[in-house]
């Protein structure tokens, strides 16, 4: 079976879900794989969630839009309500447990990793890097591409205005990965 992964990344507007979607896809490309990234806009954006879908594959990619994803990165409660039922059986869930109650997770059906992304980001000096913590956790949980490639891709997706934040973001990615390595799944 050739390498394939798809993920819906969802949260509030402003949580940086589009940014980590871009970063993941860009890094996938740098890792030599085929990738697609698509932001979902329209009425869904007003329901409390912004989301994007990333597909990473060794094969040519068909659909960039996925109804039943193999994995999820969920940053807030409305996103969990919306997307958890659509996650494939035994799919991977990265849940921002700083903002979402872990008891809501359907543990029997899916493989969930509860990551207090906001707290971890806070401890690193900036809550806004919770998205990077979550992505780091995702990379560790799925092993789809090496974390190092993601870290190296940061300068390509972070706007020139924020380039000075790259080392901190890189650290946040690593912190998320370490957290998953230590705590494992629910």
């Amino acid at each position, binding site marked *: 079976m050739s390498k394939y992964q798809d993920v819906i990344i969802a949260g509030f507007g402003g949580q940086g879900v589009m940014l980590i979607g871009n970063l993941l*896809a860009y890094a996938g*490309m740098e890792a030599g794989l085929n990738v*697609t990234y*698509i932001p979902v806009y329209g009425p869904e954006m007003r329901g409390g969630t912004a989301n994007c879908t990333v597909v990473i594959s060794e094969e040519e*990619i*068909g659909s*960039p839009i996925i*109804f*039943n994803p193999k994995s999820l990165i969920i940053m807030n409660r409305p996103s969990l309500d919306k997307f958890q039922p659509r996650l494939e059986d035994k799919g991977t869930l990265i849940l921002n447990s700083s903002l979402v109650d872990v008891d809501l997770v359907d543990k029997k059906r899916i493989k969930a990793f509860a990551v207090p992304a906001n707290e971890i980001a806070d401890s690193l000096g900036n809550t806004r890097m919770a998205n990077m913590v979550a992505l780091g956790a995702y990379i560790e949980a799925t092993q789809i591409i090496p974390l190092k490639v993601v870290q190296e891709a940061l300068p*390509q997706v972070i706007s020139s205005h924020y380039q000075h934040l790259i080392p901190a973001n890189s650290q946040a990615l690593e912190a998320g990965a370490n957290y998953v390595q230590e705590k494992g799944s629910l």
Partner: protein
Amino acid sequence: MSKKRLFVKGNEAIALGALAAGCKCYFGYPITPQNDIPEFMSRELPKKGGAFVQAESEVAAANMLLGAVSAGIRAMTSSSSPGISLKQEAISYMAGSELPGVIVNMNRGGPGLGDIGPSQGDYFQATKGGGHGDYRLLVLGPGTVQEAYDLTIKAFDLAFKYKNPVMILGDAILGQMKEPITPWEPEVPEKEAKEWCLEGAKGRPPRVIKSLYLEDGALAKHNLKLAQKYAEMKKEILFEEFLTQDASLIVVAYGSIGRIVKSTIRTLRKQGHKVGLFRPITLYPFPSEALQVLAKEGKKFLTIEHNLGQMVEDVQLAVCPYAQTDFHGHLPGNLPTPNDFEEPIIKALEK
């Protein structure tokens, strides 16, 4: 070693393709979901010595295109559905005046203001002329971001080869999604259009570019010439066949829907269903002959579109001596996913 891949939106790939193809002028007007194109062009075209104009309307933008290409240079306009309706005046004039304008339509939902999401509701408008009079555009329907780049380059070549407007018909999915592309630099002919373009009547008789033919029989002759040109264009037919050889059902779908259906077909193949995909890439001229060959082999057909049924008429015409095509229309306003097509495909297969 191949060139470094870029990770770009479909809209940006079109703009990059236009720059690579030697596009010298861009005229546009803001409308979602294609704004990345004018934004990119306003930033990058002047760096290459080209001109960017944000026009007062889509009507004006398309007429600026008409003027620019009459001077024999490569130029482009882009818009989305409601804006493309407004461009039809100039498009008809360009077809009648045999001018090589390139027009991009990132199709959104309609009719009227519709929405800003994806749709294939403009297939008829794109492939059957669109404006007044009896004419055709060459219509290219990219399905991937790389194709958006490649076909934009091709659009300029074809426009000048046939002295005919060419339309790139994408949608909000293709425009907004990002995918890696490998850019390449085509050879752009240095002396193009020298034998017909307007540059001042120096040392030769004046040239007139027009679409008005009032003398007895003149318009008939002109239309016949255009018809012969459209027949010539059949050489340019492009399509993709995916797992069609042993398939008992062929799904016909183009653009973004084509690639989404491809995922459905992969899933169904794993379940043992013999289904394949036929994806027209040139929407005009339409790959009728290739479809007819498949029909002769006794295959069943299902046309899937993101509308209430437009291309299905062309498919039906192509296969009608030997087969009928079923139709499944995904409605605009709903983002299509591969799951949406499983049931219609299985139904058509079992019919």
